[in-house]
């Protein structure tokens, strides 16, 4: 049966369409009554939406997750790879930061003493099987490094070049048992010979039996003729103890090296000694302790009140 319709129904449809257009016009002109309806609807629906959201939250993303399973796995793999790269990058950055710090300190030291240096990276540590204390650095004859050149780092004396190859060199560390260096005490200028003992502590043998030495004295390299094997003024270490030497011909002292031989990364080979002896200018500055504020509470009996009243004062330690 074909629907024919009549004037009444046509009028109804036209009225509805015109009403719709009227609503659109009102809304586009920004009539607030119309826009307020949405706020009302939102307020009315919000509690139901919240309740349904809580109830459906475990399954809400189920269907979309199922369809995205392959994509999610690929994304996960991609993120894991990115994470791994970032981890490596962080480790590399930390390593670089340490190297930069060491490089800066060695440049500061050599700049202050006016040493002409060439920087080197440690490429190998000596093996413990040989009992010798040595390192291999990545510069050699290609950068004019020769035997018996002093090797330093930011903290002080590292050792001396023993063997030179085309692009690397073997350095005997200051702690090697065969290592001997002429040293002087900063300030008093007493001289002696420091011997390595295979540890972080060396033994100083003073030449004069009447020398006055005390714990805390700082040792510097005395320097050799033409700066080989040792340039003058390089800090070596600090006296930590003076063994009882009654009856001995010369005085002895235990010296802890400034250089942390197990944490070396960047060093420098001194190619040319300074024109003048830097004397004591390279003595490391002692760190000054920062005062920590402490709060002290004094309890004094009050003359008015029967209970003691506390008073607070701040002091520095």
């Amino acid at each position, binding site marked *: *049966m*074909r*629907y024919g*319709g009549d004037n009444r*129904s046509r009028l*109804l*449809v036209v009225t*509805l*369409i015109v*009403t*719709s*257009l*009227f*609503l*659109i*016009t*009102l*809304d*586009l002109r920004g009539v607030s009554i*119309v*826009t307020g*309806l*949405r706020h*009302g*609807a*939102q307020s009315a*629906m919000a509690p*139901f*939406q919240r*309740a*349904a*959201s809580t109830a*459906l939250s475990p*399954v*809400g*993303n*189920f*269907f*979309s997750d199922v*369809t995205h399973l392959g994509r999610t796995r690929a994304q996960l793999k991609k993120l894991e790879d990115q994470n791994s790269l970032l981890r490596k990058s962080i480790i590399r950055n930390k390593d670089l930061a340490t190297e930069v710090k060491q490089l800066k300190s060695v440049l500061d030291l050599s700049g202050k003493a006016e040493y002409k240096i060439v920087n080197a990276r440690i490429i190998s540590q000596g093996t413990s099987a040989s009992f010798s204390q040595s390192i291999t650095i990545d510069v050699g004859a290609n950068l004019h490094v020769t035997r018996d050149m002093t090797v330093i780092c930011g903290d002080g004396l590292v050792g001396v070049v023993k063997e030179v190859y085309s692009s690397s060199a073997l350095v005997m560390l200051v702690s090697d048992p065969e290592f001997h260096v002429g040293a002087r005490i900063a300030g008093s200028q007493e001289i002696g010979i420091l011997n390595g003992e295979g540890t972080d502590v060396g033994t100083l043998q003073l030449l004069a039996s009447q020398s006055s030495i005390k714990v805390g004295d700082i040792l510097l390299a005395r320097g050799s003729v033409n700066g080989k094997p040792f340039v003058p003024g390089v800090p070596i270490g600090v006296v930590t103890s003076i063994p009882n030497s009654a009856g001995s011909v010369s005085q002895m002292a235990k010296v802890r090296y400034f250089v942390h031989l197990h944490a070396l990364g960047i060093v420098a080979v001194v190619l040319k000694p300074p024109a003048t002896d830097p004397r004591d200018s390279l003595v490391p500055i002692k760190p000054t302790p920062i005062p920590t504020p402490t709060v002290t509470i004094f309890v004094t009996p009050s003359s008015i009140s029967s209970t003691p009243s506390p008073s607070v004062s701040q002091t520095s330690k």
Partner: protein
Amino acid sequence: MLTRHSVLTGALFLAVFGLQLATVDQIHLPFGGFSIFLIFVLSWSALSSPEVGAVAGFFAGFLLDIAPTASGPIGEWTLILTIVGFGIAFLRYGDDSLRTNPLSLVVMVAFSVVVSMSAFLLLTLLLGSELGNAKQAAKTILGNGLWTLAIAPFVLPIASRLHRAVFETREIA
């Protein structure tokens, strides 16, 4: 009688509208999901006379327009669903083969959903609003059509029974 029909229809539409907002919209389905409200309203219109279809479309469109998630101006869905509601009722009313074949009704409802959404898209563009990626919009419309084909067979019997209970005149075969 007319008042009873209107009140019952309005209450049913409000209930389905609430169901749409509170539950169906919370589930993230692929390809844009479906609108159970649109399916129900268009099924209702298809089972009604053209006048009732137009009025039902008008009321349903107004509800969609005041929905918190609506993007266009108020009156846009009202206009579209008035016309589509009238159109689907008019087509079904005049075609006996469609009336006796439930499958054709499902296809017609799905087609009406696609037409309604496309008309909304077009009208929104004409009114100068932004709709974002055209490819995504096309995917959503097509996805809604396909979802409607899958969901409508379950909604239609319910809509038919409720329609018969309200009007007591027509029912699906």
